[in-house]
């Protein structure tokens, strides 16, 4: 069966998405960014006729239009990505009514497979009419070749049919701008005197390949109107929300696990069938007396195993109980691509991601939020300062040789921090600590080194200024600090 493609193009899509349904036309441009750095990202034909172009600073565009425009006022609208998504979604729904096989090629641009349709002419007309009814006036091109159909839709008004055998003739009279060339490639071709697609088609493919590499071969094929790749069929995104209203109230978490288990099985099946995993889980519980309870789980790695997800939700709900009887459950997932893991033959094994996620959740439930993770060096020299980062070890590509000498590994005295620091009383002799007393320790200072002055965050209310001493008391080595703001002493840690 002969292939047949149609393309639907909404010109100036960003403007069209914002002005859907408006009857009166007015020169319009779309700007993005925050003042004063606003730039134009779209303009309709009337605005472009007044000298306005995409990428122009907003202020410059206004001035340019005021001088060279036709006199009618230029309307500036702010870009609305949600409106663009709504418009694109409407176009996709329209395409679905014509054929099940179509591609979401770009914002405002669809490619449809018309092969096998009985009345392609009528379908193309219906497509153009449907788009106009949506408030998105569109151009439609129909051709055997997908690329030619796209070119026809982008360049010709209304509905254009390019019949078999006429592809090269149609393209011949088009300018180079219809081809997907980079700026550099276009400039090079123009330097050679090539301005029309027909002129490019007459060049030898081998010579173009010698000069442009693989891109040269593609250019020759585009210019001759030969086919260009497969259609990437659009699929509706999966619904990643599952819910169940209960006929009876659940007062405990254990029976809730049975309900959650079924819901998560369904959710994970949907995720897996689209090669996705959950990066975030949101559990919403409908409680008795019309109240609601919501918990969000940010997963350390995207997961799609229902048992692991159930365990994570159970741990979380056990740590944060809803506090009332449950009458409805709703679970939704934020999708992410599934992780790809390359194992190494030589690197040591790491904890499995599912087990690690559950273990981290259990450890957090045991010790509290923010107390489990990879240690992080705090960007401040305040005594005892430390941070906790996300723990997600990756397979090391070049593990160190096991015979690495020890000298490379031990680089300093190990320090143990006291959190919070021990309050202390210090007696001085010759401006040096001579005796140290704390709740658990009392003794003469037999040796000391210091002082080292440490300060920071003086620009905030929590600013600090310390004078640090390394002291030896009862054969132990401590770090004693004098708070220069309060005059008090404390012991912040021990060398070990």
């Amino acid at each position, binding site marked *: 069966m002969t292939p047949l493609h149609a393309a639907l193009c909404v010109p100036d899509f960003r403007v069209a998405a914002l002005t859907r349904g408006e009857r009166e036309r007015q020169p319009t441009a779309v700007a993005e960014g925050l003042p004063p750095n606003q730039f134009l990202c779209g303009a309709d034909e009337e605005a472009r006729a007044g000298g306005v172009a995409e990428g122009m600073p907003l202020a410059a565009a206004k001035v340019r239009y005021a001088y060279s425009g036709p006199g009618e006022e230029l309307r500036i609208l702010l870009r609305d990505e949600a409106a663009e998504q709504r418009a694109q979604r409407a176009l996709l729904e329209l395409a679905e009514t014509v054929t099940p096989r179509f591609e979401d090629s770009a914002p405002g641009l669809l490619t449809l497979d018309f092969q096998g349709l009985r009345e392609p002419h009528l379908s193309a007309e219906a497509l153009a009419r449907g788009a106009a009814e949506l408030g998105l006036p569109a151009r439609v091109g129909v051709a055997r070749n997908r690329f030619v159909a796209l070119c026809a839709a982008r360049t010709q008004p209304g509905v254009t049919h390019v019949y078999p055998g006429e592809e090269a003739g149609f393209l011949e009279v088009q300018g180079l701008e219809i081809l997907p060339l980079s700026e550099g490639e276009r400039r090079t071709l123009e330097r050679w005197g090539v301005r029309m697609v027909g002129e490019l088609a007459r060049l030898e493919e081998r010579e173009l390949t010698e000069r442009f590499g693989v891109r040269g071969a593609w250019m020759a094929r585009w210019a001759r109107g030969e086919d260009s790749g497969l259609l990437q069929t659009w699929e509706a995104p999966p619904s990643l929300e599952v819910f169940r209203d209960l006929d009876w109230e659940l007062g405990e978490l254990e029976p809730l696990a049975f309900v959650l288990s079924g819901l998560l099985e369904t959710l994970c099946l949907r995720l897996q069938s689209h090669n996705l995993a959950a990066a975030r889980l949101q559990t919403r519980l409908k409680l008795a007396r019309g109240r609601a309870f919501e918990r969000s789980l940010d997963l350390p790695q995207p997961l799609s195993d229902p048992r692991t997800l159930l365990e994570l939700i159970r741990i979380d709900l056990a740590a944060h109980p809803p506090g009332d009887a449950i009458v409805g459950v709703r679970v939704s997932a934020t999708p992410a691509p599934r992780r790809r893991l390359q194992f190494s033959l030589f690197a040591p094994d790491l904890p499995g991601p599912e087990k690690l996620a559950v273990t981290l959740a259990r450890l957090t439930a045991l*010790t509290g939020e923010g107390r489990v993770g990879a240690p992080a060096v705090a960007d401040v020299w305040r005594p005892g300062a430390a941070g906790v980062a996300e723990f997600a070890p990756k397979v090391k590509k070049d593990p160190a040789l096991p015979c690495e000498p020890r000298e490379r590994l031990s680089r300093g005295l190990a320090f143990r921090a006291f959190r919070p620091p021990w309050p202390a009383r210090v007696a001085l002799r010759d401006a040096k600590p001579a005796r140290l007393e704390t709740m658990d320790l009392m003794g003469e200072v037999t040796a000391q080194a210091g002082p080292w002055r440490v300060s920071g965050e003086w620009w905030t209310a929590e600013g600090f200024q310390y004078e640090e001493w390394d002291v030896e008391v009862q054969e132990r080595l401590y770090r004693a600090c004098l708070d220069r703001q309060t005059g008090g002493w404390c012991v912040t840690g021990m*060398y*070990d």
Partner: protein
Amino acid sequence: MEGAIQRQRLENLLRESGLGKALPKPETPRYPAVRTGWRELDERLGGGLPRGAISEITGPDSSGRTGLVFSLLARETGEGAAAAYVDATDALDPRSALEAGVDLARLLWVRCDPREAPRYEKAQRVDQAWQASNLIAAAGGFGLIVVDLGGLAVRRLRQWQRRPWVRLRQAVEHTTTALVVLASDPVAGSAAGAVVGLQRQSVQWRDGLLLDGIRTTGSVLRRKGAAEDAGAAARRAA
């Protein structure tokens, strides 16, 4: 070497007495040990701290215990393995660990919660440390788990029954995980496969202005399947 000679003598004696049978072969470790990076100590330990067993690093404060543990962590994380640090007293200083060469991204730090009432605090912390260690050991995939009980009184730790240590040993048995307990005195009893004792020899001060290092001696107080260590190894942590 001495152990091998004694074994040979005993086997000869058995043969001469007509009892005939040789002694059962000593257990050979299934996985390579975790080397401390302290050559003499590794030799005395038979290659390092055993995997699939509990080891204890003991000694008084400022005897270099934490430095030795950092050395183990640096070696293990440097080879690409994941390690865990169960910190009963929230004493880990990330800057100090980083300077010792520990790859912090591969270290799981569990800071036991100090928010409980002071009266029950220490018992609570030990309980948390034990539960956390069990969870991590059960997850698998960690090359080294350090349970830091360094700041806790031995009296408190000994109140903890022997049973938890046996369970902890069973959790790591037949795995590649080495579980190291840092404490001021041995606490795991017979559940420990090796016990290393550290003693501070001297402190070195440079020109009276800078704390330069600690000179430490280490001895193997106990090692399963080996005669008690007669000598001691010395080193300087700086």
